[in-house]
């Protein structure tokens, strides 16, 4: 065996660190952490660092809700979905009892009605065109995908449009949130939540078996699911409520629109107390923005630590068009439907709130449409 053949595999697997972007990601994170610590807010620093860890975990595990849902709907493969349920089950262990027992903590709840159904359905269409959901957009933007930069920009714009539409949709009616712990107590609620997750897993496995597909999650989805679940618990304790993503997009968009002269004083959404305050407060006072920023820079650091960052070419125009349309639909749908895969599905189910499962069912139906639309933009249905 020659020296050349000995050295070739070594150079092929050796990580090529992109010091410029690795340094930029770490420096940006350090600046944000320093700013919130100067304000005396260690919990905010924890949210940024929690987001950073989530960005690393998502990127390293290649944890993709969008691809998992597509594989399930196309071929019956349930491994990715089960990996997602691992995250929720771990998160629920802390969220359900703590939110019910401690007054400073709360679960992710939302009313049930047309707004939730329409929003989740539209989000489902959008996530297949965008090729990413709320968390997926963050970590792929951080990971160096120029296409997802386009998705994120339109996601932000769409969520502002959604904020303007939401009061009209809420006027269509609905019922108050249904929370397991309200009916069964903190521990009974936890048992019911875990049972609902187990039932969903059993149904997914049954579908996979019927279609002759694999239902076992890959090793990276199991490890990634456990790590992400534990980080979700950390974010919950630091922020006081379950991890959410897309509210940050709405705030960023509204601040940009306001800076351009748009007047939100007549918009119902922006008169609700928390939103009114968020619009004039520092973006680093918003819990979802803190984890969002951390997640982008965490994914950037992880990507730059293993290969040259953002070294691929821009995708074709049709693909960018799908990214833009998908981003708009995701943004609008997330605001109308009370969140994305993370805020509504993961956070909702992990809180024992019925809206999480309703969101999942409606979004899954939207995914069916989105998958059928993908070829029109040059994207694979698989």
């Amino acid at each position: 065996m020659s020296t050349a053949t000995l050295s070739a595999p070594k150079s092929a697997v050796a990580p090529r660190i992109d010091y410029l972007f690795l340094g930029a990601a770490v420096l940006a994170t350090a600046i944000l952490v320093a700013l919130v610590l100067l304000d005396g807010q260690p919990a905010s620093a924890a949210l940024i660092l929690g987001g950073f860890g989530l960005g690393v975990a998502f990127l390293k595990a290649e944890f993709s809700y969008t691809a998992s849902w597509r594989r399930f709907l196309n071929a019956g493969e349930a491994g990715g979905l089960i990996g997602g349920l691992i995250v929720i089950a771990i998160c629920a262990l802390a969220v359900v009892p703590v939110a019910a027992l401690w007054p400073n903590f709360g679960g992710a709840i939302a009313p049930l009605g047309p707004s939730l159904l329409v929003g989740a359905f539209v989000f489902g269409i959008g996530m297949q065109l965008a090729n990413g959901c709320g968390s997926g957009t963050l970590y792929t933007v951080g990971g160096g995908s120029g296409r997802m930069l386009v998705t994120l920009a339109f996601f932000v714009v769409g969520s502002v449009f959604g904020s303007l539409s939401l009061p009209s949709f809420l006027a269509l009616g609905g019922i108050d949130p249904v929370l397991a712990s309200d009916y069964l107590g903190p521990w009974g609620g936890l048992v019911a939540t875990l049972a609902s997750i187990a039932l969903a897993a059993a149904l997914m496995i049954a579908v996979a078996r019927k279609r002759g597909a694999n239902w076992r999650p890959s090793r990276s989805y199991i490890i990634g699911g456990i790590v992400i679940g534990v980080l979700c618990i950390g974010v919950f304790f630091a922020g006081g409520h379950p991890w959410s993503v897309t509210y940050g997009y709405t705030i960023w968009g509204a601040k940009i629109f306001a800076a351009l002269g748009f007047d939100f004083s007549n918009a119902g959404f922006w008169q609700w107390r928390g939103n009114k305050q968020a619009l004039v407060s520092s973006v680093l006072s918003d819990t979802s923005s803190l984890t969002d920023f951390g997640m982008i820079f965490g994914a950037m650091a992880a990507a730059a630590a293993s290969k040259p960052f953002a070294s691929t070419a821009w995708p074709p125009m049709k693909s960018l068009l799908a990214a833009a349309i998908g981003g708009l639909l995701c943004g609008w749908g997330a605001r109308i439907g009370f969140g994305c895969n993370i805020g509504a599905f993961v956070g909702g189910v992990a809180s024992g709130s019925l809206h999480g499962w309703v969101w999942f069912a409606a979004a899954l139906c939207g995914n069916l449409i989105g998958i059928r639309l993908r070829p029109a933009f040059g994207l694979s249905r698989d």
Partner: protein
Amino acid sequence: MRKTYMVVVVLVLVAIVGNHLTSASSGRAVSPEDFAGACAPCGAPCPSKK
């Protein structure tokens, strides 16, 4: 694409720091659901409260 990314990272960081330094700080980081009457993560009111 690398140049685009570096420009975006710098612009975003400048925007975040600028917004933080020129805006009021609410103290502890909050979410709309932390406020009384909120029925969803975005602060939407409960249907029964209308």
